[in-house]
């Protein structure tokens, strides 16, 4: 019974062969035939999950419109039906889905915008991790900085994108005119500070340092990787690194330094 009922709920949205007729299992009511009664559940199923996806990806919806997003949602739910008790995880694979075999207008742009919105959701729900403030960092021995591992806050998400997706998301949220959809490399940090999720545009060297630290590389190796992407003198780089780390410390991006 449960398999049949579940199939009838999903079928109008996902396709597939019709199962046994509803009147074989379901009684009519005073006003509705069995199939109309089952359809109540089917409509609610898609409406609920659609609303959830649209709530998680408002900028994607704004760019493609509700009609296209409904098609995206139907195709996505067919390929990635919910298998978790939490609706918070329902849309977690949407960026990869848009990058995959899906055929929708501007799908590469939509995938990048979805990445930013997904990162916002993940950062919002991330576990609490300790924060090293600038005063704590002053106590770390110099040797530990060079050879130790710098742990970053759990809520930090680092994105390397092919569009100015962060600016697009900001414009959508602030109901401003949308910026250009043209391809352009961009790098973004998404993190939570005092229960609010923040987004910061990064340069490629900044992204490279943080990505290397996130991958567990010591600071020296992370800076060396960044230097290869830095356009300027070593002195200028040193000044920039000093500024970056001060800013990141104030934003609570560092969790700890492990010897």
């Amino acid at each position, binding site marked *: *019974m449960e398999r049949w009922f579940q199939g009838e709920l999903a079928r109008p949205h996902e396709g597939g062969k019709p199962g046994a007729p509803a009147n074989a299992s379901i009684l009519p*009511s005073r006003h509705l035939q069995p199939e*109309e009664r089952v359809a*109540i559940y089917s409509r609610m199923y898609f409406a609920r999950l659609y609303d959830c996806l649209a709530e998680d990806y408002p900028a994607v919806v704004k760019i493609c419109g509700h009609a296209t997003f409904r098609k995206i949602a139907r195709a996505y739910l067919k390929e990635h039906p919910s*298998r978790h*008790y939490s609706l*918070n995880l329902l849309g977690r694979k949407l960026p990869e889905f848009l990058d995959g075999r899906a055929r929708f207008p501007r799908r590469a742009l939509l995938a990048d915008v979805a990445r930013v919105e997904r990162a916002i959701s993940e950062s*919002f729900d991330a576990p609490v991790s300790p924060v090293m403030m600038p005063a704590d960092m002053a106590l770390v021995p110099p040797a530990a900085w060079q050879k130790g591992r710098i742990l970053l806050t759990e809520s930090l998400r680092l994105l390397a994108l092919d569009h100015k997706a962060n600016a697009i998301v900001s414009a959508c949220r602030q109901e401003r005119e949308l910026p250009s959809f043209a391809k352009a490399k961009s790098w973004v940090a998404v993190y939570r500070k005092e229960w609010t999720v923040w987004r910061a545009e990064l340069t490629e060297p900044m992204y490279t340092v943080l990505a290397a630290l996130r991958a567990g590389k010591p600071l020296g190796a992370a800076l060396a990787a960044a230097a290869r992407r830095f356009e300027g003198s070593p002195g200028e780089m040193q000044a920039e690194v000093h500024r970056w780390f001060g800013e990141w410390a104030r934003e609570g991006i560092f969790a700890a330094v492990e010897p």
Partner: protein
Amino acid sequence: MVGADRPARSRGTIRPDAGSSMTPRAKKLRFDIPNLGFGVGLRTVHFGHVLEKLPKVDWFEIVSENFMDTGGRPMWVLDQVAERYPIGMHGVSLSIGSVDRVDFDYLRKLGELAQRVKARFVSDHLCWCGVAGRNMHDLLPLPYTEECLAHCIERVRTVQEFLERRLVLENPSSYVEFKSSRMSEWEFLARLAEEADCGLLLDLNNVYVSSFNHGFDPFEYVAGIPAERVVYYHLAGHTNHGTHILDTHSDHAIEEVWKLYERACELSGGRSTLYEWDENIPAFGVVHGEALKAKKRLEHVAGKTVGSKGRHVARVG
């Protein structure tokens, strides 16, 4: 709102307006669970108000799953609220009637959350949420058969053993009835509660919604629920589409639902009561106002009884 579509009530049922002299002795709750009084659901839109104003609310109910996988602001808010108010946990994904295996990872997280917020009770619904690993994120209906009853009894026992606490199950709203059903929903719930030794959460709005959709007498339903196992009541509004009613939690409760609440309180003497509002959520004071209406209704029931019997049957929490 309901008009001619309202289902007929059977003649033999005691109506709340039939006079309190017909009120039977109120049933004491079988379990050692306190009456928390009149609470409301803790919803995101009210987080700021609740933390800033610390309103005089008896207790809050949370949707368990909304706090099970987050380390963000919702959990921080809940910790603050749980320090100041009693918390009841209400889940939507236990899927007690599913033929899939029990999800022990889910139960572990549910138990951890209950411990963290010192939950006074943990409730969910008589329903299933999906099969073959899928979750449809709905409270899907069950056929009321002996086979299904045995299945649910076994799973309730498993859950209670794992959580080391009594489970409280709510009657769902439903939009279909199965041909295979061999007993009423209230008989199914009564037998399940008795044989699995669990508590019940009686949602009077759900009783009304299902009575409209299926054409049964809602007062017969309330009378058929063992009052001594009812841990708490839910109240809410709904949306009437003419041909059927949807349980939308989007409005004030209608008078018929309040009458059912009064009748249930006559039978139980009053229990913890919770007002749910989940769509088009108004200002906190409006939702809390509905919970306070419940308090007045219970006082009315208690007053009627005092007038006719000379003793209180209801504790106004």
